[in-house]
């Protein structure tokens, strides 16, 4: 064993006790959950907050004049304040609740994309995007005559700035939509620099923060982001709740996404008028209980603190890269200087599926496949990979267990 369970940055043992599911066994083995990048486990605090909402403080929001509805509306809106503070947004009205990051991006494509962008305008994405930041733009391209351009990445898995400059050269680009942290390579993109670059070229910037927001303090005003999206379930919160941040002046100019209750100022058969942001973009009864859960997840993460989380995960990543790179025949994808706790790898002679099944039998959960990033797989010259992702509750022992598990996989496929 390479390191004690007690990290020098945070108390992993105490944190693990907050996550009931981590005490489970799988196939009779202790669960080693290394798939938090797909979806993170939930702390007791989140589970309790959602239970409390359903047991003691629940009604529809923004509608009832009764006590329960008013209290539930307060609790729901308090999460908007909390989220705005969490991201350092300039105002609470810049926070829209959606179902997940995917819906947030689709909302931007449908509203900003159709109403503000013009046929002939171009959007730039990178070669390391999740399908959620590719497909909505393809759909917009096909329906609305927008050009979609792909900025290249280097072999080490970092954005190629020369390629980015080429894509912007003709002045047609109006939006740069790019990941803040790759879900396959673990690469962090230099977001402040990218925002300054986009703005200098007359374009807006959208950041897919689904991975990054879990691991690092995000300061949207410092970054000067125009749009930022993430999902609650990767941030130790529940499924069904996501966030879209957009600068106020952009939201003011954007038409609604879905029509229905809560998003209107007035409705008649002849014509309806729209509510102001954020409500213009939240049609129908929202995910009230899940929003409360997201609020508890943000509180939980902040109670541990990003300095400790980031330092712990940095140590995990260093240990993971050092340990796995010693395994002969194992290839780790990407070698970005600024990378987080995502390690995708292939193994000579063993397909990712077989690796995942053999690890699963030892209680170790990793993801295998193309990770919703098929074009990136092609770019890196592979068809699928296995992927281990780390969270604040991941221990050094679990990384050692992964290495031991992989040596057993190697025995089977030798």
């Amino acid at each position: 064993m390479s390191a004690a369970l007690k990290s020098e940055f945070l108390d992993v043992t105490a944190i693990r006790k907050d996550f009931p599911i981590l005490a489970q066994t799988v196939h009779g083995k202790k669960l080693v959950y290394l798939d938090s990048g797909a979806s993170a486990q939930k702390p007791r605090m989140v589970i309790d907050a959602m239970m409390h909402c359903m047991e003691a403080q629940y009604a529809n929001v923004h509608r009832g004049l009764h006590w329960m509805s008013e209290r539930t509306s307060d609790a729901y809106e308090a999460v908007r304040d909390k989220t705005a503070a969490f991201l350092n947004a300039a105002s609470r009205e810049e926070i829209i609740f959606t179902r997940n990051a995917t819906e947030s991006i689709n909302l931007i494509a449908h509203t900003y994309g159709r109403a503000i962008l013009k046929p002939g305008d171009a959007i730039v994405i990178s070669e390391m995007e999740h399908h959620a930041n590719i497909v909505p733009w393809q759909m917009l391209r096909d329906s609305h005559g927008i050009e979609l351009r792909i900025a290249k990445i280097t072999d080490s898995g970092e954005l190629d700035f020369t390629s980015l400059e080429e894509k912007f050269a003709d002045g047609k680009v109006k939006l740069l939509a790019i990941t803040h942290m790759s879900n396959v390579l673990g690469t962090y993109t230099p977001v402040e620099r990218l925002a300054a670059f986009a703005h200098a070229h007359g374009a807006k910037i959208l950041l897919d923060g689904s991975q990054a927001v879990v691991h690092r303090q995000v300061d949207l005003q410092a970054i000067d982001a125009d749009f930022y999206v993430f999902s609650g379930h990767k941030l130790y919160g529940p499924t069904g709740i996501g966030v879209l941040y957009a600068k106020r002046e952009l939201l003011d100019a954007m038409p609604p996404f879905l029509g229905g209750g809560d998003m209107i100022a007035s409705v008649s058969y002849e014509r309806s008028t729209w509510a102001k942001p954020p409500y213009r973009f939240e049609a129908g009864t929202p995910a009230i209980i899940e929003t409360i859960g997201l609020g508890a997840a943000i509180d939980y993460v902040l109670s541990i603190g990003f300095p400790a989380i980031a330092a712990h995960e940095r140590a995990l990543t260093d240990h993971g890269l050092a340990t796995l790179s010693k395994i002969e025949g194992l290839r780790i994808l990407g070698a970005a200087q600024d990378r987080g706790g995502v390690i995708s790898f292939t193994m000579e002679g063993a397909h990712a599926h077989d690796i995942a099944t053999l690890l699963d039998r030892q209680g170790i959960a990793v993801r295998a496949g193309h990770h919703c990033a098929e074009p990136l797989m092609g770019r890196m010259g592979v068809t699928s990979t296995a992927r281990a992702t780390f969270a604040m509750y991941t221990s050094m022992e679990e990384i050692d267990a992964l290495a031991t598990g992989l040596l057993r996989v190697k025995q089977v496929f030798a």
Partner: protein
Amino acid sequence: MSETADLYQAIIMDRTKNPRHAGKPPHFNREGHGDNPMCGDRIHVYVADDGTQVHHESRGCAIMIASAELMADAVAGLTADAIAERRKAFEAMVTTGTTNPTLGDLNALSGVSEYRSRIRCATLPWSALTAALEGAK
């Protein structure tokens, strides 16, 4: 490795590492394709009609390639109707885990019934073969 011996039997490992029906044959009458969008696995199947001979070009896991190999063995010389029947029996076997004496070596894949997400790896070659037989010549 006892916990996975039921899945990765010797015959599966052998046929994955030493396939006998892999590659595009010089003569074939029909072809069919199978994709697993979940993992990116794919297989292309070539069928020569006279006395049914099957070849495959596969990109995938050990289970998928071994299944393609054992399928090619199992359908050699059979009519389309007999192949359809065999496919039905095979799918029942990998879903339930109950071996079927008429399936011979294909029974080596019965272990996948314990691994729900892997059943599709075993059945993909049969989907591709069906596509080939149902498609135009």
